[in-house]
């Protein structure tokens, strides 16, 4: 199946209550697949084509306020339009799953794959001090797996989560093992699981719930900001995910996510055949970032190469983690051009192994 189709199928299977979206290349198959599948007949899941990405993200705000599992998807320019709503979701502490199948920018850019939205995704993207939980799939299988995981994390922290994919992962076809069907939460389950915050109508036994991000008193707003920061620190403690490939004896480590991790893995194979001890560290969560493990390797290896389809965004987080202990370089192609494994091999040789 195609990565984008799998996102749709996984949403139905994990008990998602609604999808709101607006067509944009290269992810339109998400909504198209949902419309063909007609999950409203099968699970009661609502699927609605909104008038814009601005409306989609705000429909998510409305629906998720009732404690339900809501998903939207878009690609880079559309995510920029959603940035306002994402900031409000974070500010109102509402969960929700946003899929970004990245394309090249800035502006209308290109419809070809890119990883240039790393900053936008991991540093918040909208206004104010907040973060999204960011998951980076590197296979169609992970497009399936991260839908459920994304919802779990979003509800655990009451914070929006993002699957940061790219045009390659969205468009490519691979074998995939789909999840078993999980029913949607019943009204009773929602009261039990999310009753402490979900605006399901004011009950006589509780105060009214107000899903807002507004606070007029500076001291109270600062307290709330501190609460958010504590949540992000907890994510860094409990929910960092990454994959290590050939890192045990590595002298050099490539850090790459998504499609760049796939082609870097090939580059590692080629370099290993040449007798060069190279490993791959693949961040699965881009926020929280695997800072600790990179920092641990920093005192053992001769250098890191961050491979990304951008001018070098994640490399800044790698440098912060390494904190000057060893060399950190970046290699990437831009504008929708996908690097080849051989280019990565050459980058390791010239940028890390050269004098």
């Amino acid at each position, binding site marked *: 199946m195609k990565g984008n189709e799998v996102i749709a199928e996984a949403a139905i299977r994990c008990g998602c209550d*609604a999808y709101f979206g607006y067509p944009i290349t290269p992810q339109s198959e998400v909504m198209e697949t949902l419309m063909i599948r007609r999950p409203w007949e099968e699970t009661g899941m609502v699927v609605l084509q909104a008038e814009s990405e601005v409306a989609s993200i705000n429909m998510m705000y*409305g629906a998720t306020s009732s404690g339900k599992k*809501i998903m939207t998807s878009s690609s880079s320019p559309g995510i920029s339009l959603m940035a306002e709503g994402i900031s409000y979701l974070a500010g109102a502490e509402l969960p929700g799953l946003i899929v970004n199948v990245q394309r090249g920018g800035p502006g209308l850019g290109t419809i070809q794959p890119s990883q240039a939205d790393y900053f936008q995704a991991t540093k918040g993207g909208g206004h104010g001090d907040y973060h999204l939980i960011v998951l980076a799939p590197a296979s169609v299988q992970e497009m399936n797996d991260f839908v459920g995981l994304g919802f779990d994390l979003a509800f655990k922290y009451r914070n929006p989560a993002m699957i940061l994919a790219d045009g390659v992962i969205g468009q490519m076809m691979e074998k995939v093992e789909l999840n078993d069907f999980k029913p949607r939460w019943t009204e009773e389950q929602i009261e039990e699981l999310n009753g402490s915050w979900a605006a399901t*109508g004011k009950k006589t036994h509780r105060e009214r719930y107000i899903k807002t991000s507004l606070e007029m008193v500076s001291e109270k707003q600062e307290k709330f900001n501190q609460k958010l920061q504590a949540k992000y620190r907890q994510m860094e403690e409990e929910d960092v995910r990454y994959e290590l490939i050939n890192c045990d004896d590595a002298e050099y480590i490539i850090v790459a996510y998504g499609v760049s991790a796939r082609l870097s893995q090939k580059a590692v194979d080629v370099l290993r055949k040449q007798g060069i001890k190279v490993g791959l560290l693949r961040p699965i969560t881009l926020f929280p970032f695997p800072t600790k493990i990179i920092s641990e390797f920093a005192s053992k290896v001769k250098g890191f190469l961050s491979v990304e389809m951008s001018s070098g965004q994640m490399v800044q987080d790698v440098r912060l983690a390494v904190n000057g202990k060893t060399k950190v370089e970046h290699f990437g192609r831009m504008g929708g051009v996908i690097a080849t494994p051989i280019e990565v091999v050459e980058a390791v040789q010239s940028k890390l192994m050269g004098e």
Partner: protein
Amino acid sequence: MADLQLQDIVKPENQVYGKSKILTDTPMHYCYGCSHGVVHKLIAEVIEEMGIQEDTIGVSPVGCSVMMYYYLDIDWLQAAHGRAPALATGYKRTNPKKYVFTYQGDGDLAAIGTAETIHAVNRGENIVMIFINNAIYGMTGGQMAPTTMVGQVTATTPYGRDIDRNGYPLKITELLAQLPGAAYVTRQSVHTPANVRKCKKAIRKAFENSAKNIGTSFVEVVSTCNSGWKIDPVESNKWMEENMFPFYPLGDLKNGERSDVGEYSVQKLKK
């Protein structure tokens, strides 16, 4: 009645009017003479009389009424500027048995949120939209609104609204009445006791409609903003009657329901 003593008047059976239980005791932050408080009261009374406190969700806007959730004891969502109809759509679609209403000013509904407004009504979302049109931006200090009258002086039209520079006042309510998704579109005011009663009936009808799944119900309330207009409350009512009512006439613009429910959903186009 002549025998009614003071101690009799306070007896519950003799009370003919009181504060709705849906209204909280929080003092409202609105200026004297502002229409918001009256419309809030009417919505609260309708919710109480219909017995739908547990089933009603309000969506507050950005503008003077952003903190409306302090005053009505129901669950609330607070929207980004202009996005209330999108929030209401999301909530109502996933919770079809609830009564969902938006409460928006002219800047929120007819400027920054025009797209969300038009598309929510065009889809015939089964929600209530309450539109407070006072022809000015109150909260930010009296700037021009999309509904500001031609020639009206505001903070950003200090020499009066000039159509060459600023375009025309937007009759968004007339525009919405054209859409097949709209069930009920009406324009009301709350500047006299008679108008208050009429307006309450309109709000009640709008709420009742939303349980019938017959399309969007839209209630505009032509309102005063004496602080923004810099006219005292009594004079404001007169100014509204003289200047706004001829351009924004009161009354129902549409009173029916979507006649075509289900018709297009199965209709096949000829190849």
